[in-house]
């Protein structure tokens, strides 16, 4: 049962889905009228920039955090390893929206106490929550990459007289980062989707701007359809990038 669809076949399928949705739910052409105006698209585009900005900050910031988590868990002393395991597993087992909401409460209290307006804003809570969550997930991806390297790499490095730290830094980590690159890009796609949760605590990103449009125009189906298609295109492109990276870096079955 070999069923790996070609990209154009999957895209035809997405086309069928995108055609069936308006037909099944009697979407009205007239209700798509706001999307004929440039100002609507400009409004959405600014939201998309915020979505991408939060995602980029979270993914870049998550790399040092992931490195810390992975190293602490892989070879840290016990007093560091166990707290990190509890923290990483805990963060991954909690709903991201709950984490965001809690951080929003704590950070806005902290920001008021310190007199820092920037910290009280939902943007800060959204980015910190995404950063922590992505750090935990990427930390595990990096640790898996370190563990997936053949033992011979360690043995060769150590027998050349490198210390543990040198072996890790010069031999293991460069290879592990290569292996962790495709999951990192996949995690970026997840971030783009997860940023929409920030809308609930008041981050005016892409999805929230869609809500603002449909509350004015009273066309929730049509607007959410358009917004979802925007998310689809971004993440579809990122997915193909993951495919290319996996093929280029040479760890894929086909």
């Amino acid at each position, binding site marked *: 049962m070999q069923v790996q669809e070609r990209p154009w076949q999957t895209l035809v*399928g997405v086309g069928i889905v995108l055609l069936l949705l308006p037909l099944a739910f009697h979407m009205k052409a007239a209700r798509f009228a706001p999307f004929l105006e440039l100002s609507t698209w400009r409004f959405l585009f600014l939201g998309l920039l915020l979505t991408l900005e939060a995602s980029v900050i979270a993914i870049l910031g998550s790399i040092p955090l992931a490195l810390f988590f992975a190293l602490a868990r892989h070879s840290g002393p016990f007093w560091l390893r166990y707290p990190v395991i509890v923290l990483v597993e805990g963060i991954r087992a909690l709903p*991201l929206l*709950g984490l965001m909401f809690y951080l929003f409460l704590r950070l806005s209290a902290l920001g008021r106490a310190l007199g820092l307006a920037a910290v009280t804003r939902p943007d800060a809570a959204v980015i910190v929550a995404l950063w922590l969550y992505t750090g935990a997930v990427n930390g595990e991806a990096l640790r898996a990459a370190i563990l997936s390297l053949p033992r011979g790499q360690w043995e060769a490095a150590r027998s050349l007289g490198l210390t543990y730290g040198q072996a890790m830094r010069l031999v293991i980590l460069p290879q592990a980062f290569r292996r962790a690159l495709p999951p990192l890009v996949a995690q970026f796609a997840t971030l783009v989707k997860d940023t929409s949760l920030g809308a609930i605590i008041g981050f005016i990103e892409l999805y929230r701007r869609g809500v603002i449009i*449909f509350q004015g125009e009273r066309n929730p189906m049509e607007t959410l359809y358009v917004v979802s298609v925007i998310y689809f295109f971004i993440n579809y492109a990122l997915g193909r990038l993951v495919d290319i990276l996996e093929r280029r870096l040479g760890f894929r079955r086909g």
Partner: protein
Amino acid sequence: MSTADVWHYLLLGLWTTLRLSLASMGVALALGTLIGVLRVSPVPPLRWFAAGYVEFFRDIPLLPVLVFVYSGLPKAGIRLPTSFDSAVAGLGVYTAAFVAEVVRAGLQSVHKGQIEAALSLGMSFFQMIRLVVLPQAFRMMIPPLGTVFIALVKNTSIASAIAVEELLYQAEFVIGRTFADWPMLIAFLLYLVITVPLSGLVNFLERRLRILF
């Protein structure tokens, strides 16, 4: 609001979270299995549709899907009785895409000879899938389905945005009344009580299956 009241609301929320998770998983399993089977069907347009369904829902956030069902469908004359039902529909349709991927991988793991044998016995495509392939594929599918279920339990928290009174909604409600933020920590603990044993179980089953095959 006393401490006992806080616990009362949170436990009510936990109960709704559990019901929502199970009901949505039911919808996702039914729909996801159908789509997963379509992905290996002999009819190309059905295969493409199924692949497109999976790709589309995996690439968009859950929140617009839930709000589409909750605020959008009534405009099309489709009124679900409660917001809980809207959440079940939205979560079910969304999670079905992830279930379908698991089902497809499971179906593909069954040896080709099994399929040839079933077809040469004169079974139709759907008989072959139902009687020969799915029963064998099912055991391979259990651990990844567990992973999908854990993600679903966490995703039910997003239903708080469409006024489903699940755990996160109740935690926010209680915090709004008490101005204390410890109830959120209790809510976290209650989420962990569900998700941590589940992921332990998934790990255990994965190890078991690796030995068996």
